Structure formats: C-alpha cells, structure tokens
C-alpha cells in the first residue's frame, strides 16, 4: 500500500525522490521541502494523526475501525481493496454459532470481532494474535477467525472458508481535526489534488473497459 500511495502522491505532483526512498530513513521530505513523509506501522497511523504529530495519514479502513480514532476521513483512495471477514474450517461453515457455548475467535481485530458477534448476540472469547491467524482453527486454538481477506487464497490453502463478510476495506486518507481547521487551505488543496488523480484514473479505467 505504501508504494501505491506514494505513486498516487507523485501523480498529484508530490514527489519523494528515489534516493530518499532507497535510504532506510523513516522521515523523508519532498525535494521542495513542502511535505514530510513519516513511515510507520499501519496500525500506528491513526495514533500519529489523532495526536496531530502528522496532519494527514493513509491507512486501511480495517485499522481505522479497530483503532476507533477520532479523525476525519475525507477521501477513499480505493487502494488495497480487501474484506474483513469471518472464516472457519470448511466443515463448520454452515454450522450455527449458537451450538457453541462461546465462540472462540482468533483475530488481529479484537474490537471489530467483538462488535460483530455482540450485534448477533453471540458470546465470544477473543484470542488476540498478531499474525498467521489462519493457523488458529487448524490447531484447535479457535473456532473461527476474523481477518483481512484479499484473494482468499491463503484461506483456501489452509482449508478455511469465508463465512461472512463484515465489511470492505480500502485505504483511506485521514486528517487530524485540528489541522483540518487550522491548515484548511493546504489540506483542502491536497485533498483536491488527490481527488483529481483518482477521478482521472477512474476515467481512464472506464475508457479501457469500453
């Protein structure tokens, strides 16, 4: 997502030079020093923006839902499209959750998972994991998982199947509330420039399809 996002910014005229990117610096600037980029772990993006250390950030909707960050989300960048889904072993796909006293759910998204099952009135035990969530049902650690599904291949190869899609996720542009008010002109311009690129790309996609 980082490469795609940088390409989008470059299209909008905000270019970070190759040499800067090739370095392992976590804080780089555009040549004209108009913009600084900070590279952080996806799940940390909402934190940097909420505290106003970064005015603007890019992260998946999955991360935002989980972080419940208090930020504006003015633009859907459409990148990194995937689904947040409930999955389980092929054999249990049709099974009613209510046959289980509590559903053990392994996930990187404890909040999203809890909210989803609570809405259905199903008691769950969340098993928080930070990676390779697909393993959990195979080894009997959990009954279900809630995870990001892109193509579904990893699930398939591990004998799992999607049971329900909770929501779709794409990369979102997020903006700190104070910055949105205090730097409204520059942030407005940035949103406008990115939106113009997205509209242009959408049109060229349509032409290709036609």
């Amino acid at each position, binding site marked *: 997502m980082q490469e795609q996002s940088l390409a989008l910014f470059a299209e909008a005229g905000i270019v970070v030079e190759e040499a800067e990117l090739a370095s392992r610096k976590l804080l780089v600037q555009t040549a004209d020093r108009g913009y600084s980029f900070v590279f952080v772990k996806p799940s940390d993006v*909402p*934190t940097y923006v*909420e*505290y*106003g*250390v970064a005015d603007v950030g890019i992260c998946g909707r999955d991360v935002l839902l989980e*972080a*419940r*960050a*208090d930020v*504006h*989300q*003015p*633009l*859907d960048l459409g990148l990194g499209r995937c689904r947040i889904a409930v999955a389980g072993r092929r054999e249990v796909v049709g099974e009613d959750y209510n046959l289980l006293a509590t559903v053990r759910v392994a996930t990187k998204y404890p909040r999203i998972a809890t909210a989803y099952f609570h809405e259905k009135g199903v008691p769950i035990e969340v098993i928080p994991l930070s990676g390779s969530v697909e393993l959990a049902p195979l080894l009997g650690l959990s009954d279900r998982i809630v995870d990001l599904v892109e193509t579904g291949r990893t699930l398939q190869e591990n004998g799992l199947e999607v049971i329900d899609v909770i929501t779709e996720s794409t990369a979102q542009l997020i*903006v*700190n*509330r*104070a*910055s*949105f*008010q*205090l730097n*409204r002109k520059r942030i*407005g311009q940035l949103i406008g420039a990115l*939106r113009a690129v997205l509209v242009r790309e959408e049109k060229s996609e349509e032409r290709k399809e036609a």
Partner: protein
Amino acid sequence: MSSLTKIPSGVQYFFDEEVRRRRYIERCAMEVFTGWSYDEILLPMFDYHALFSRGMGAERAERTYRFVDRDGALLALRPELTLLVARTVATRFPHKPRPLRLCYSGEVFRYDEPTERAAREFHQVGLELIGEPSLAADLEVLLIAAELLTTLDLTEFRITFSHADFFHGLARQLGLEPQERALLREMIDRRNVEALGGFLARHAPQLSEARREEFCQLTQLAGGAETLARAAALPLDGQSAAAVSHLAAIEQTLGALGLDSHFRIDLGEVANLDYYTGLTFRIYVPEWGVEIGSGGRYDQLIASFGRGEPAVGFSFALDALSGALAHHHRVSPWEEEETPLRIPGGDHPAALARAFGQARELRQQKKRVTIGADETR
C-alpha cells in the same frame, strides 16, 4: 516492579515549571472570568453515580470511577463539572435572579480508552451562563473564550462554530429514521464528499444533483459569511434556516468587532448533538495537535434535574492549554527571577537577623528570595 514505583493508569504528578504554568493559566482564566462578572463555584469531588448517569447518559457514566458509600449507595468521582453546576443551579438556586454567571477550575476523573488519550482532559477550566437564551449570551461566552486565549498570548487561536439545529432541521426535512440520522451524522463528520453524496442520493433523491453537491461542499470546510450565504440559498426547512440566521448574526457581530479572522462557521460540526441544543463551538491553536476547548448551548441539561432553563458555556482542557503554552517559545510569564540571598556568619543570631531582615525588605518589594547558607563556612 516494586509497589513503590508502580503508578495507577491515568494518575499524574506535576512539578516544577509544569505546576507554575498551570497555576498561571488558572489565574489568568479566573481574572478574565471575574472581569465578566462570573463567580467561581467550588464543587464536590464525588457525588451519587445516578446523578452523573442521569445527566450524561448511562453509557458515558460507565467510565466513572465508582465506589460505595457507607449506606451502600453508589458514588462516583466527578467525571465532569458542567453537570454538577447544572444540578446545583436547579436544586439550590431556583429562586436566585437570572442570569447566573458561574465559573470553575478543577480536576475531573474518568477512565479513558487508550485510543482516546489524545483528547483526554483531567482538569477543566470553564464557565456557564444560565437563564439567558439570547444571542447576546452566545456571543458573551465566545468573546470570553477569545479573551482568555489572547490573555495567554495564544494569539493564533481559531474557534469554529455551528448550530445544532442546522443538522436536526436537515434530518427532519429528509425524513430520516434514527439509524439513518446516525449514519448521516457519521458521513458529515468524516468530511468525505463522495460518501456523503452517495448517502444523499439514496436518502434524498428529491433534491437535485446540484443541490446535493452544494450541500456536500458546505459541510466540507469551515468558512466565513460566504458559507452562510450559500447555506441560506439552499431550500432549508424552518429549523435549519433559523439556525443559519442565528449564525449569521453571530458572524456579523464578530466581524464588526474585528475578530472574524479567529472565527469560522463549520456546518460540518455534528459531534455532541445529543447534548447541545443551539450554538456549538470548538477551539484550536496551532501549538497543540487536538482541540483545547469546546462549548455550546445546552438548554435541555438542567431540565433533567427538574427545572428546565437555557444555558450556554464552555470548558478548556487545562492539560491542553498548558501543553500549548509549553510549545510556545516566547516569554514565560510564570517564571520569576530569583534573588539569591546568602547568610554570612552562619548561625550567629546577629547575622541571621541581618539576612532575614534583608529578605523581608525584598519580599515587601515582591521579589522572589532564595535563602542560601554561607558557602565560606
């Protein structure tokens, strides 16, 4: 980890410059508030949990620190101050002539989720103007907030304001169900034109595309008089239209006072609509990454304690004000120069008397004295 080094989550110890800065801010605030004839009210640290849950809703009252009184009643440390003011006014001062002008400064206690840390407030400084429904009352509190920020030398402050009825009127006009209303609020709050446009296309097909687009644009960015002129041109229902003209009157007055560069009308402000009934505002400064204060009109709150009456007020987060001033590299008026004073001759009564006599003179001149022992000893 030893039990001596462990500190409960959310607990803070302040010392040195931080304390001097916080006390300075409180002094400035109280001077400004007193100048506008507000009386300080000192409120209890805890009260019945039922009181808080009645005023702020059961869900938010869950985040209080609760404990049990000797008779078994559930108590809670105060999670905010406005509620306690509202209750005092409704139950203790029903016959005092209105309007009442009350101000406060004090700590509040609540569990905050880790993700909400950016917006945490542990010490609120604010005021309430009660029993006065007028436009003048709305302006008064806005102007006091502005004066405090100017006094603190946070001169680049920005206050965005809106009116709760703009949204309520709109939701009514579109005939939205409660769930759709919540969704519309979320869409406006995100400031995402495309998502909001999509929502309106589904739920307000009666509006022309141009009108829908105009509405999306209006809730995007805060602006001045032109924002209101554009809003007034939309086919609004009575409630929304009245809100727009109320905002216009505020905007014109602020303009005539030469303050318009600090104030922006933000029709996309839709948070806290369950609480506020009229004017709403948020306060920002470039020195701090999140809002440092907020306020508005809440004509329903006091009614939940028996007697309904209009009220408007604001509160600043002292933690945020102090953080902003710490980032501010101009003068630090809370720092006073020290006048060191030695005591030559050690413990000899005559020497001591001479030194402390000198110290007393300096103190009469309001100098800050530091008594030091004689180094030559």
